[in-house]
């Protein structure tokens, strides 16, 4: 659990905003604005933030499903940021993704068995009887019955479909699985089943997860470390226990305070932040959170705080208390 499997350095992804008949560029969406993190083998890094904070763009950039504007992505020590499609192909085997909506990410005209077997066929790893046997084994691993291999996606429930997506991701024995909101489309009772499955599979296979979700409780459950994003930047990153026990960034604190607790005796519905997330087209200067922060100082409007180590392994991007954020 020591060497870094994935290292992302200063990742940026900007999208042009075009308007008018000439489609002239009138602005830039700063979807991801300088994100750095690393992920160790066998580790789960949770990436949380609200809609539009860039967490999904980070996930897709890591897999080179979208081309980053700048920055560096190293997988197993090798820089994959600028590899061509053919050069990238062998690396694709070691990175897989599970998407949010298991209804949209499965081809409705393929059988479940074909869907799970497709990556093996594409990479020429198995065919015929051998392929079928491998797929049957994958089905068992994710808690589906091999006799369901001939069924089509619409014959499965939402939770089962997500199991098919997970089996497909497992097929190539990847070292990194990116999970982009894998349980947010599922009912709570099914959500627990899928989270448990993901945890069990990681224990068996030792791969890493980059786990993206907006639900803090889900992230808290599955992750070893958690990174909090706001408007394209990581504002805080720490070990899970440390982050939840001792959040330092005012945004993290506000997020945690906003989660409704399932305990009627702990009523505390007091929003710590007002207003909405500003547009990533013109993000606020300085610290992007200063417009909603209760502790904003004059400096915060002009100075962009760097992500610095505030305590052992606990990094925060906040100017309060000499860059250590506000202790909870």
């Amino acid at each position: 659990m020591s060497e870094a499997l994935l290292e992302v350095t200063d990742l940026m992804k900007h999208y042009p905003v075009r308007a008018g008949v000439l489609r002239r560029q009138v602005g830039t969406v700063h979807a991801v604005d300088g994100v750095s993190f690393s992920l160790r083998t066998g580790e789960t890094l949770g990436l949380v933030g609200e809609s539009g904070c860039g967490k999904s763009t980070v996930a897709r950039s890591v897999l080179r499903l979208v081309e980053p504007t700048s920055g560096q992505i190293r997988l197993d020590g090798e820089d994959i940021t600028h590899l061509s499609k053919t050069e990238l192909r062998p690396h694709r085997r070691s990175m897989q993704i599970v998407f949010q909506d298991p209804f949209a990410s499965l081809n409705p005209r393929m059988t479940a068995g074909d869907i799970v077997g497709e990556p093996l066929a594409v990479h020429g790893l198995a065919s015929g009887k051998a392929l079928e046997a491998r797929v049957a084994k994958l089905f068992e691993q994710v808690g589906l019955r091999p006799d369901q291999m001939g069924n089509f996606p619409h014959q499965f429930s939402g939770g089962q479909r997500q199991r098919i997506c997970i089996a497909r991701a497992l097929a190539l024995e990847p070292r990194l699985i990116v999970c982009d909101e894998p349980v947010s489309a599922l009912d709570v009772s099914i959500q627990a089943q899928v989270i448990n499955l993901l945890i069990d599979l990681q224990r068996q296979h030792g791969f890493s997860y980059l786990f993206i979700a907006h639900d803090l409780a889900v992230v808290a459950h599955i992750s070893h470390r958690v990174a909090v994003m706001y408007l394209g930047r990581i504002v805080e990153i720490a070990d899970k226990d440390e982050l939840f026990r001792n959040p330092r960034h005012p945004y993290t604190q506000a997020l945690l305070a906003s989660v409704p607790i399932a305990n009627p005796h702990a009523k505390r519905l007091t929003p710590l932040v007002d207003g909405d997330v500003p547009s990533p087209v013109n993000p606020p200067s300085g610290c992007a959170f200063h417009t909603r922060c209760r502790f904003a100082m004059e400096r915060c409007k002009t100075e962009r705080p760097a992500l610095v180590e505030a305590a052992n392994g606990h990094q925060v991007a906040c100017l309060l208390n000499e860059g250590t954020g506000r202790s909870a």
Partner: protein
Amino acid sequence: MSDASDLVLDVKNLKTVFFTNSGLFKAVDDVSFHVRRGETLAIVGESGCGKSVTALSLMRLVPDPPGRIVGGSVTLEGTDLLALDDAKMRAIRGNRISMIFQEPMTSLNPVMRIGDQIVEAVRLHRNLPVREANGIAVEMLRLVRIPEAARRAREYPHQLSGGMRQRAMIAMALACRPALLIADEPTTALDVTIQAQILALILDLQKELGTGLVLITHDLGVVAQTAQRVIVMYAGKKVEEATVEALFAAPKHPYTRGLMASIPAVPASGVAAQARLNEIPGTVPSLVRLPKGCAFAPRCKLVVKRCQEEYPPLQDWGGGHLAACWRAAEVAEEVA
């Protein structure tokens, strides 16, 4: 308990069915509940449990065909809504009873200014000159804490953020000061910091205006933070009803108990990394092919032979805590 005059809504044995190609299914099956003035009743359950159809039935907005309300009564301030003709119902809908939905963008008219949409709602029910109705619209937008209300009233829905749109929906729903507000997953499409703002707003306004509130949600955290009483639905039936305190202290139905155990909690301190969650095995049954007996039996840990043969009646386990389970007594013991 308070007297009957306090009662805003009284639903008795509501039954709503859908006629589909694959057969008839009972989306709401013999559901009863009531809401008092200023009270919040939460209806919880997973997708397909009938919570949204219950809400639509109260508004008499169930699409017919394929759906139809086939039994029961919905009494709002002493009037049985199910007995009214369409014109009378239109006079009450949006006036004495109104509703907000999950996705504000799909419930707002995209080509009409926000203010005008509120004016339309107000003038439909109250014979007011436009100027006066305009004033009410701006006043309502101010009430839901939209900054620069007068300017925002002239904007179109796409110019507002998700949270602002939901505020505008609430303004519209409350413009006629209804006796009952139904909120169907009002914050599910919103981010968590915005959710906290909107829930706090709804509760504030409810206190201010004394509106009865039916809050439909799948999120037990939202229930605990907002409601006084809860009903839990499963496969079209009410399986449990209690005060929030009683429900969270000691759920009596195995389904409720399973739901509570399966939600991950934000750790206050020292939760081991990657603790396994309790899961409810299996999936929600299809309403077309409901098992005989208790619909939860196939997924239930405590299942006995009787559960598969006979549907358990709702029983009072003390202090108005109702649960429909043959083994409710044992569920309670296991929790304690």
